[in-house]
Every structure is written in C-alpha cells, then in structure tokens.
C-alpha cells in the first residue's frame, strides 16, 4: 500500500478561498526547464544606428560569458546588461507547485507602499511533475511513481490526484489535479501574485504536511526522525514487486 492509498480522501483539505498563501497550498507557477548546459541570449543590432531591431542568438554558455571582455558589437538598450551580466534562456512550463515556505523575507509594515527593493515576499515552492503518458512523454515512469509513493527517494514526494467539484465561479482558482511528484530538487522562489503564481484554493492536509515537512528537512540534511524512518520501512515492505530494484 502506498502513501496515496493510505491517506485516501484525507490527502487534501479544500480552502474556502485562495486567501493569503499557507504552507501546503497548491499554486500554478512557471517552472524552468533546467538544462544541464545553460543557454545565453546574445543580442546584436541589425543596424548599427538603431536599437529598434535586434538579432538575438541563443548559444551555449561558455567561459567568456559573465566576464569583462572585448565586445565587438554595440549593446542593445532594452537588454540593460551590465558588463558582467548575460541573458539566460530556458524553456519553462506552467506546473502545479506546493508552497513549502511563506513570507520568510518580508520585513517592514504590511500594506506599506514598498519602494523597489531586494526585499520581496517570495514563496518557496516545490514544483510538481506528472506521470508519463501518451500525451506527455516527459513525465515520470510508472515504476518511479510507485517508488515515490513508498518514499524511496528523499528528493521526491507523492502528490495525490484531486477531482474538483466546486465551480470556479464560486471558488476562484479551483481546478482538478492529476497525480504527480513533488520535486524538492527543483525548489524555486516566486512572488505570490498572478500571472507568475496563481494560487489554488486547496492545500494538503495537516497529516500530509507533517510528513512532507519531515521529508523536506531530511532532504536538506536534517536527521530523519524515528517516526519517518519507521514509516519508510513500513512503506518499503509494501513496495510492489515490479518496482523493486533488481538484486
């Protein structure tokens, strides 16, 4: 029996409204595709005398990027790049994500009109990746899904499917979710406002949050609690044969 079966209908707690982000809440955020080899966008004017039209080349990052160097081309005004700055290009996809940190960097008075500043009320979110299917070949395999349901990997946590029955007219942001895997190895920081972050009126239950908290801490070097170690032993003993590693 995997974790999703164990929690069953108690995996989620619906929220009456989106409200202020809370731990364990779901959101939709753009998640970058982290290429092993980053790409840099190099801008070049089409005509030397105009900023209006630029030819942008995206090329693999090399040792000359992010350094002071002899530029042969005139810069592009709208890129606003300093001498050791570059534009990085990557693909991204809007995915569900689980809020695992809130408000950690907010100082000052709430509601105060803030000047442009490094201080931001960013959320820490763990993106959710889906199951491989005919429609999406880039998802996790069913063997990995099974292993994650049994907590075999510290960087992954299972997320149950959710069938939304509430109307989005009455519950802004309400939506259904497919089963997925929460990825601690893709943690990212987002500002909690649309379009970069659309909150969902749904969070994982307190029991799931407690387990998720224990797994996340373990992923970040904390010692696993006795309860977590025992839980993993129980789940591992129930791992289906197809998902067991070859011995």
């Amino acid at each position, binding site marked *: 029996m995997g974790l999703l079966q164990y929690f069953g209908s108690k995996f989620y707690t619906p929220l009456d409204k989106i409200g202020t982000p809370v731990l364990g809440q779901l959101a939709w955020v753009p998640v970058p595709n982290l*290429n092993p080899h980053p790409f840099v966008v190099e801008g070049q004017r*089409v005509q030397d*005398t105009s900023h209006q039209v630029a030819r*942008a080349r*995206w090329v693999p990052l090399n040792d000359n990027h992010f350094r002071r160097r002899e*530029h042969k081309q*005139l810069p592009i005004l709208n890129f606003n790049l300093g001498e050791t700055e570059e534009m990085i290009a990557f693909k991204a996809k809007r995915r569900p994500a689980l809020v695992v940190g809130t408000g950690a960097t907010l100082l000052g008075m709430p509601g105060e009109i803030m000047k442009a500043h490094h201080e931001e009320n960013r959320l820490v979110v763990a993106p959710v990746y889906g199951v491989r299917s005919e429609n999406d070949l880039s998802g996790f395999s069913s063997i990995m899904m099974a292993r994650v349901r049994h907590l075999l990997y510290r960087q992954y946590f299972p997320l149950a499917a959710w069938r939304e029955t509430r109307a989005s007219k009455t519950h802004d942001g309400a939506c259904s979710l497919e089963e997925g895997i929460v990825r601690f190895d893709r943690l990212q920081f987002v500002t909690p406002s649309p379009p970069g972050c659309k909150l969902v009126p749904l969070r994982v239950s307190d029991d799931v949050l407690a387990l998720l908290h224990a797994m996340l801490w373990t992923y970040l070097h904390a*010692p*696993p609690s006795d309860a977590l170690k025992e839980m993993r032993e129980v789940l591992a003993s129930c791992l289906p044969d197809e998902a067991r590693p070859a011995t």
Partner: protein
Amino acid sequence: MGLIDTKTLTRGLIAWMRREGLAPTRTRLVKFLYLADLQHARYKGGETLTTWRWYTGPFGPVAVEALQLFDQGVREGWLRQWAVGGDDEAESDRRAVGYDLPEQDESLHEAMPPLLGKVREWMKRYGDSTPNLLRFVYGDTEPMQNVREGEVLNFSRARPLGPGPAVQSAPLPRKQVKRLDDLVARLRAEYSAARAASAGFADGPRDAAYLEGVPTDDDLPSGEFIITFPRSGDE
C-alpha cells in the same frame, strides 16, 4: 554652472583622453560628458554639471546642447574636428568623427574637479572600446535603467556609489567568545549526529528504472531570432 563651465569640461575630457592614448571620437566624448553629469548628480542631489537635457539616442545618452557646443568650439577655434573612414555615402556609418584641442593646455588638468576622478577611471577602463563603453553606460548607470529610445533621462535616480560608511563591529568580550565557542561545538556535534543519522536513511536505487523513469530536461538547439523594441511613446 559653478564647478566648471561646459567648454572647459569638454576640453578637459579631451585632454584626459589624449593623455590616456585614446581617440576622442564624438560618441565617446558625449558619453564621458554624460558620465561627468552622472557623477555630479550622484553626489549633488541629482543636479548635473551641464544642466543639459539628456535623452536616449541610437548610441546611448546624447544631448543636443553637447553637439551644439562642439560645433561652436569648431567655429570659435577652440576645438579641431577630424574624421576617419570612408567619405562616400555607402561607408558613412563607418566614418568616425572626433575632436582635438588645437594645442595642448596643461592647465585643463588642474581645472577638472576632483569629483570627476571616477570619470577618468572609466576612461582608462572603457575608453578604447566604444561597444564596451556603451555597454557600461547602458547597463550600469542609473538614468539609463529601463528607458526606451527617445526618452529624456532622469538624473534624480542617480545615487552615491558604494555601500556607505563602513560599520565596524566592536570586539567581542572574552566571556562571549567562550560562549560562542561552546555553541559552535554543540552545533558541530548536532551536525555530525545528523550526518550519521542520515547515513542510515539510504535513498532508493539509482538503477536502470530510475535513470529511465525520471524526466530529463531537453537541451535547446542554438539559433537566432529577431526582436523589435518599442520607442518612447510607442504603445
């Protein structure tokens, strides 16, 4: 203008550039005049030395007053204009126009305000490469941040350089140092215990099913595309 007049400032910048072995092209000279204004604005509440109306042109900050001053200098004989490159129409964009002083004037070095010492540093660093000079002006000067071509530059954005006066921490009392030593030792022990406890919490296998079953991120192919930017006032 109290600190220095625009004629002396322009002539002083040319003298500095020649002293550094740099060609005082019109584009570079305009940019160093802009940087002189910026440096003044940074420490004088946003006020510029020249009070000129700077805006963003195809080659970065430019002021009509600067170009008029150059013309005036040539007419009155305190500037000498030169040009290199092709004369025909097809090569007009490769032609460089610049200015020199009719004769050396050592007093100009004395006339330059100490506040502009930073401009001379930038001259040494970027003065022999117009692309590098423009990249610095575009990316690292406050009035140029987030402006569109044709927009008038706002020097009230200029801020003093540097982090402000250094804040020194007082030496810690011996008693507190001892206490911190004890706490660090405790934290080290906790960390070691955590590592030891984690060692028994093995991860799942990195076998063929793992390697095949975890999504991979595609690499992008190299390529290029055309971007069109709006001008100031465009929707």
